[in-house]
């Protein structure tokens, strides 16, 4: 099997696992709810005042709640496989519909954050890696350590306090245009860049000390030529691989930062759904969030493959 198909297969298995995990947990969630689940769902669907025993029975029959639990679980999972995610218990809207709107917002925020972090972190790391051990390098280490010691919600809060409340430059929350995007994206990007700048710095320092870099200079190449021809690509191999690990941090951060900035994305919606125990929404949002994670991971894998011929050969 080539490197490409192996990656796609592994990520497909991961996507399947995400669906299974989310499906089983939310199924157990339904079973664990106190009171009559059919009644609750009916209440969500028809409104609290309209609930009647007849409505609950209709729901019960429709969901097959009278059948054995194993059959119910299979049906539950089958619905996920068909992407039939039901309706929100709170708003009565189809889950798929609201996810469709929120997905765009979440992707916008994640990609803006990722892009911004790549503009800050790796170039800074490259510069510091070429001056490894200098005062600037140590200052970079201290700054990165300080930023990493601020969880996303604290970092975001500090940025709001600074840029919105004190300086009044940017809106603290909401969703109107690029001005609202900047603060949440920056919150995530700073955390990501703090780490990726250190990885880029170490990778650069390692490449500059590598025998092939010395040999490039001995061949007669200038430092600049050696860096462009042999430094950047080699240094980006571990950096891109690390990007895959950062995705965990990004996805977790998106959930928190969306809530903090009232950004109408999937993470925000997930937190609301948990708060309101809106199980179809919990399931839908967690599923899509998990799938975004899988897709971004696959993209990073493919990028690694393109950069490193050793991986292409499956070595």
């Amino acid at each position: 099997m080539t490197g490409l198909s192996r990656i796609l297969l592994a990520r497909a298995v991961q996507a399947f696992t995400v669906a299974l995990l989310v499906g089983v947990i939310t199924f157990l969630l339904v079973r664990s709810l106190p009171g009559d689940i059919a009644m609750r769902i009916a209440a969500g669907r028809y409104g609290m005042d309209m609930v009647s025993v007849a409505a609950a029975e209709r729901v019960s029959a429709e969901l097959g709640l009278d059948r054995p639990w194993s059959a119910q679980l299979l049906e539950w999972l089958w619905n996920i496989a068909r992407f039939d995610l039901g309706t929100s218990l709170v708003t009565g809207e189809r889950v798929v519909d609201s996810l469709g709107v929120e997905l765009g917002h979440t992707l916008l925020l994640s990609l803006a954050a990722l892009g911004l972090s790549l503009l800050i972190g790796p170039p800074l790391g490259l510069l510091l890696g070429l001056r490894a051990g200098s005062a600037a390098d140590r200052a970079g280490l201290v700054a990165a350590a300080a930023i990493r010691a601020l969880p996303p919600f604290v970092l975001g809060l500090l940025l709001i306090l600074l840029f919105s409340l004190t300086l009044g430059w940017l809106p603290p929350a909401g969703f109107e245009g690029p001005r609202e995007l900047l603060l949440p994206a920056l919150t995530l990007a700073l955390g990501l860049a703090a780490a990726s700048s250190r990885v880029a710095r170490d990778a650069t320092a390692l490449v500059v000390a590598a025998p092939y870099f010395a040999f490039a200079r001995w061949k007669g190449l200038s430092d600049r030529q050696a860096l462009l021809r042999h430094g950047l690509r080699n240094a980006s191999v571990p950096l891109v691989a690390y990007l895959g690990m950062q995705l965990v941090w990004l996805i977790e951060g998106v959930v928190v930062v969306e809530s903090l900035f009232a950004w109408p994305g999937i993470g925000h919606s997930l937190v609301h759904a948990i708060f309101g125990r809106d199980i179809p929404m919990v399931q839908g949002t967690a599923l899509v969030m998990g799938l975004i994670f899988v897709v971004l991971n696959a993209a990073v894998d493919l990028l690694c493959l393109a950069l490193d011929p050793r991986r292409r050969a499956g070595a």
Partner: protein
Amino acid sequence: MSDMVLDAASAMPRARRAVSTRIAGAAILLALVAFAAFGPLLAIDPARQDLRNMLAPMGGEYLLGTDHLGRSILARLAHAARLSLGFATLALLAAAIPGTLLGVIAAWSGGWIDRALSILADMILALPGLLLVLVLAAFAPGDIRVLFMGVSVALWVEFFRVARASAAGVLASPEVEAARLLGFGPAHIVRRHVAPRIVPVLATLAAFGVGGAVVTISTLSFIHVGVRPPTPEWGNMIVELLPYFEEAPAHALAPAGCIFLLLIALNLLAGQDPR
């Protein structure tokens, strides 16, 4: 020969710096642990309201002032420290002990045991940890036992993976092959070969695990799905004090400062770049 001389010369200050940052980290952590352990014994009841003294400034009758309900912030920070550190330590133990044991067992036995455990670990890692904790939190929002379960379930996998990978590397090495040929059994191999290698790695992981657990519960409280008021918790306190930021900015930032100090201390102690 000359290389060795030079390496030794440049390694000296680096090693000394590493030791001094570790000592600084340990000192901060110790101070926070002492605060968590003894603070609640000395300070006032965190729930007592002094209604004539709401949002009292720092440094007056109350060392760190009072919140909007006139409760001592110092007392509440101390109780929150006890909650966070206690929670994180227990979650760490609940994750590290089975994670490490299973990791070493998987590396040692190989075969289907290894494969089954690795599949289980991959399943849990398929979702980012916080997402898993969040979904589990839906079972009983605000119930700390559910959070505890979620954090431990997400964390044991890290220990499993690191212990398994490090142990597998050592077990496949010539030194272990030699030890087996020399007639040594599993106890000796674990004690002399495996443990010295995996303990430092696991110690670093433990430092990050504690930090991660503390961040997780404060984050969940902050987004209203974790510990609920009036229980003093750092994330909770920020939420409660934020509306009064303009009158008392330092009050709202004090809990954030505690989290920051704790994470810095753990980072210094781990002696690693922040990743």
